[in-house]
């Protein structure tokens, strides 16, 4: 009969049997064997060399650590560091609009009706949010991967088209409503703050009203709903049905301030919003995880960090699959798997 020591030696060398593995497994699990295991590992530790070809991997780990350490810093930041951080935030806000590609698809229509269609487009690249201002003074934010289009003749009729997610603070103009068009519905606005979600690849399109009043009219499906503040309209694209619920609008529109607020929401909904914000795919393994309810606020954290925080407050485990390069040089989405610990 081999001793544990021999079994673990073989396990470490990589040439081991299934029984060796079971024994090592057992050794790790049993509380009363820990002194022995610890001694054997300490011996192994003293024989472990500091050489290896993993510099790149490890410098990536150091980067991640720096990032996490910086997130914690506010507590002990010096005045200079605070200044620097403020500067980098301001710089980011100033730079993002520079990334916007404004495409003027200007062409004169020879259409007999004589309509002049010149459109401006604002794109918000994936992973960023972009502030915009329209010619009438209406301001808003575009979420990650979204586009807003408006006619250059905007001032004579206020029509915009949205693909993705946008938040608006519309300037009130008597008898000149503001329209937001999506492939599924049109929102008629007098003067108000509201949020529109219409991503092509999602099952639903939505409107969330923060203040004022809006009227939502279906495009292919016939419906006309009037929303009050803190109401949420969801249009199910395949069922061609609308649902209206009462929510805390602020927690849905806080993305524009770089915050993600979840107030007692099921993990399935949280995952959906994280997927949208971070262009990721989140797989929840088990129904009880999907329905677990959380309360959390995230501010400009990266997705790694959010997963880590979730796993420290809840019995959750996760695995991040980094983005992979496809043959056509595009990248797959970051994929995250989550499990509930039993």
């Amino acid at each position, binding site marked *: 009969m081999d001793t544990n020591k021999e079994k673990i030696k*073989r*396990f*470490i060398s*990589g*040439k*081991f*049997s*299934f*029984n060796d*593995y*079971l024994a090592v*497994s057992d050794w*790790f*699990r049993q509380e009363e064997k820990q002194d022995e*295991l*610890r001694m054997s*590992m*300490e011996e*192994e*530790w*003293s024989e*472990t*060399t*500091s*050489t*290896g070809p*993993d*510099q790149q*991997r*490890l410098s*990536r*780990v*150091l980067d*991640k*650590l*720096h990032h*996490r*350490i910086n997130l914690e810093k506010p507590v*002990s930041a010096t005045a200079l560091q605070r200044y620097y951080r403020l500067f980098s935030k301001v710089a980011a806000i100033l730079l993002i609009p520079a990334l916007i590609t404004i495409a003027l698809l200007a062409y004169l229509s020879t259409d007999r009706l004589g309509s002049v269609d010149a459109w401006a487009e604002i794109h918000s690249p994936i992973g960023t949010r972009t502030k915009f201002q329209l010619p009438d003074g209406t301001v808003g934010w575009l979420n990650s991967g979204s586009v807003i289009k408006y006619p250059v003749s905007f001032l004579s009729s206020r029509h915009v088209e949205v693909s993705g997610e946008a938040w608006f603070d519309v300037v009130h103009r008597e008898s000149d409503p503001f329209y937001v068009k999506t492939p599924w519905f049109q929102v008629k606005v007098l003067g108000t703050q509201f949020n529109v979600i219409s991503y092509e690849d999602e099952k639903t399109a939505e409107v969330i009203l923060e203040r004022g009043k809006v009227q939502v009219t279906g495009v292919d499906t016939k419906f006309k709903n009037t929303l009050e503040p803190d109401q949420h309209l969801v249009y199910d694209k395949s069922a061609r049905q609308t649902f209206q619920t009462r929510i805390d609008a602020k927690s849905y529109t806080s993305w524009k301030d770089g915050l993600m607020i979840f107030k007692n929401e099921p993990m399935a909904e949280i995952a959906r919003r994280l997927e949208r914000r971070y262009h990721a795919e989140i797989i929840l*393994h*088990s129904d009880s995880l999907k329905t677990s309810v959380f309360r959390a606020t995230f501010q400009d954290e990266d997705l790694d960090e959010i997963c880590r925080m979730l796993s420290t407050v809840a019995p959750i*485990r996760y695995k991040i699959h980094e983005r992979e390069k496809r043959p056509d040089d595009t990248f797959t989405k970051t994929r995250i798997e989550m499990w509930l610990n*039993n």
Partner: protein
Amino acid sequence: MTSLSRHIDSLSVKQLKEGDPKAFDALFNKYAQRLYNFSLKYLKSAEEAEEVVQEVFMYVWERKEGLKPDSSFNSYIFTIAYNIIRKHFIRKARDNSHKDDLIYAFLNEENNLDQTIDYKFLLEKVENIINNLPEKRKAIFIKRKYEGLPVKQIAEELGISPNTVENQLVAAQKQIHRELQNEKLAGLIFYVLFLSV
């Protein structure tokens, strides 16, 4: 551990205690590769070894105020690593437990439990076979073995009888077993000595 190396550690630890990020980097550069190599021996996975390095150093940073410059940093970091590796190992063994059961049954039948095997390859093989099960059978297998749902609940969820669930589970196990046997004919699951010398 030479006394010079210990002296350098004690200086870095003193600076780190005062919050100096450069000292943190110095300790990382000195120990990270060794920690990585060490973790790899037990966890056999590059990603997990990387996670261990990260967790160990995060732990060091978060508790830097309590560091003791006069005691051995080398032993301190070993203790943290030991605890974290143990946690990972146990978790991984639990995640793999249903695959381990299948591998055990298969090797036992052939009296190969003491034979040197390519365990990682076997795990991947089983995973692959599970992934390629017919959709419905796979869904049932995963709900039962990965998510640990009771047979009755699975039956209700899928709108089928508990008997059907049981039958599908047995069929899944048989199929995996059979496909593993086919693999064995190729002799791939056993450790090939000449490759590793």
